[in-house]
């Protein structure tokens, strides 16, 4: 695809670059010194959120998530299977998709549920007929209540967390960072990355927030210590 598409076929490329270059001969009003790499990664644990300064990172994460109307459960690592089972039954989830890299012990005991284990091969069809999805989480941001999925084996491909209506996300406390500035020291972008902050929402009609338009309308976060 890229082969039969040659740069030399594109006179506009040269034209645009020439226009840009001649435009840059006029120096901007405040001669901006070269500031490449201005951004620095925040030191982990730097308190940034004024209202939450006194909160531990994990507690802050929980508060902000709840503010988004996400349901939050706090458990020990050993408590994950029980928490998952409780959510599945209380939400009446009848069918479930999980990425193939997810710890099987977490969902093996969920009882009478139709289960699809997705290894990412094959077309992404049929997921819209499935009630719920369980994933892990590479990284979570406390200050913004953000779950970061970066295509690791326990997170799976993007389609599985998009079409089902319930997303159950298991976050281990060591994955939680304080602020956005630390994000890219934790994850890479060689796979697609999705940042999820609360359930899908719109405020398009009279600015009234409606939870749930196209993505999962229910977000359940299990924080495991």
């Amino acid at each position, binding site marked *: 695809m890229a082969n039969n598409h040659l740069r030399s076929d594109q006179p506009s490329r040269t034209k645009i*670059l020439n226009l*840009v270059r001649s435009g840059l001969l006029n120096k*901007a009003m405040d001669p901006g010194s070269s500031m490449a790499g*201005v951004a620095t990664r925040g030191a982990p644990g730097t308190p*940034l959120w004024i209202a939450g300064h006194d909160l531990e990172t994990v507690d802050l994460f929980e508060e902000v998530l709840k503010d988004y109307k996400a349901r939050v459960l706090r458990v020990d690592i050993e408590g994950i299977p029980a928490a998952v089972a409780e959510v599945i039954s209380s939400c009446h989830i009848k069918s479930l998709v999980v990425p193939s890299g997810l710890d099987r012990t977490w969902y093996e005991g969920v009882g009478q549920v139709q289960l699809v284990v997705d290894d990412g091969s094959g077309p*992404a069809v049929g997921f819209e007929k499935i009630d719920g999805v369980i994933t892990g989480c590479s990284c979570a941001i406390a200050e913004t209540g953000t779950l970061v999925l970066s295509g690791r084996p326990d997170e799976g491909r993007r389609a599985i967390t998009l079409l089902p209506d319930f997303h159950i996300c298991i976050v281990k406390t060591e994955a939680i960072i304080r602020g956005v*500035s630390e994000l890219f020291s934790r994850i890479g972008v060689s796979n*697609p990355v999705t940042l999820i902050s609360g359930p899908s929402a719109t405020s398009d009609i*009279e600015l009234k927030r409606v939870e749930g*338009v196209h993505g999962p309308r229910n977000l359940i976060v299990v924080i495991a210590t």
Partner: protein
Amino acid sequence: MVWMVLSDMAGSRVGFPYTSLPRIEDSQLRANLRSATTAIREKRGRVVAEKDDWEELRLKGEQIRAEVLNNLDSYLVKLEASVENVGGVVHWAGDAGEANEIVLSLVRQHGESEVVKVKSLTTDEMGLNEYLSQGGVMAYETDLAELIVQLAHDKPSHILVPAIHMNRSEIRDLFQGTISKGTALSDDPTVLAEASRLYLRQKFLSAKIAISGVNFAVAETGTICVVESEGNGRMCLTLPKVLISVMGIEKIIPTLDDLAVFLELLPRSSTGERMNPYTSLWSGVHKGDGPEEFHLVIMDNRRSAVLADPVGRQTLQCIRCSACLNVCPVYERSGGHAYDSVYPGPIGAILSPQLFGTESSKSLPWASTLCGACYEVCPVRINIPQVLVHLREKVLTEGHRSSSERFQFAILSAVLSSGSRFDLALRTISRLRFLINRFLAFGSLPGVAGKWTVARELPEIPKESFRVWWRRSRGQ
């Protein structure tokens, strides 16, 4: 001073003074706008106050964007190489027409007649939907507000909440006549959102091609970033086989760490959230996850000319957050349609005249009180008032002064340059006050001066001027 624009527009009756008039008289629209802008302003204020390093973030935002613009040629080449390196195809478009052609020919190559679209101002600027439809391709807008605007054959009135000018019952009626024919809907926003979910889901699952804009393109890695709330963006970016993203040449960010700065600045400034519900990042094509083909269209469309203007250049720092709209007293009263451009509000008042240079956009630099509220909230610190004043000067020096205007200024300068002539003018006006006040009672002055009062109120002329009163009461 306002006379100059008015006389400039004489006869043509185009430009902001005329387009804003019906909006200002629409009290329902003004009420909708006031409550909407007030609500977003307050939300923004709350989440910005949470960040004690907010000003530092703004400085970083400004520096990063200025760095990119001041070295745009090398960043463009770098981005191109990175995108190609991860399996994307880069197309260059000199103007909107060329960008439209590229998109349509890509759609045709795949033999499709339908595409799904993620809300994108850049494609609105191109008039892409109309172009595609003339070429036999239907583009479905999938953002709720854009869908509403598309169904109503209307135009967006706000960058972020394009249907801000419509209330819930208007939207209910619209849906019942279009996507939910035969279903009784209530005007509860939850019900209306559900109706759009049902309608669009089929489109997402069947579409082969998606078209999106670009919030940020990271030069270092070729990563594209799209931020959104509803999940329609994720649908479009994930499910179709082919993805075409269109960006202006200025949308580049050097590194991922620089991107993190904007992931803090944008949601707080824009929707007043700590983070928007969904942010998608992708780098070219990823086997087994998402589109098999990725095309990036990089469009100039006169941005290089904006870049060449030393004062105007900063306009291109904009990240389209719309914070400046929500604080603008002019926008709050006139609404987005009055700007007669894809880009309304303070950013529109500086961007539209530079990009489009149309007769109507030339009046936009005057659609401001120069109060500076926009500059204060702008997350990348664009000095909007400075650019406004610069553009006023530009419009006027580029031969837009009519002879009647020169005449007016000659009189004005003669009067203002002499104390006694000024005194005489004041006395004359006071003497004519019965006549003038009579006209004002009917709402407008006669002749050329009437153009000034068309959208403004003149205070009643007092019996004597301050100077006269001062002299009399001091007994001099």
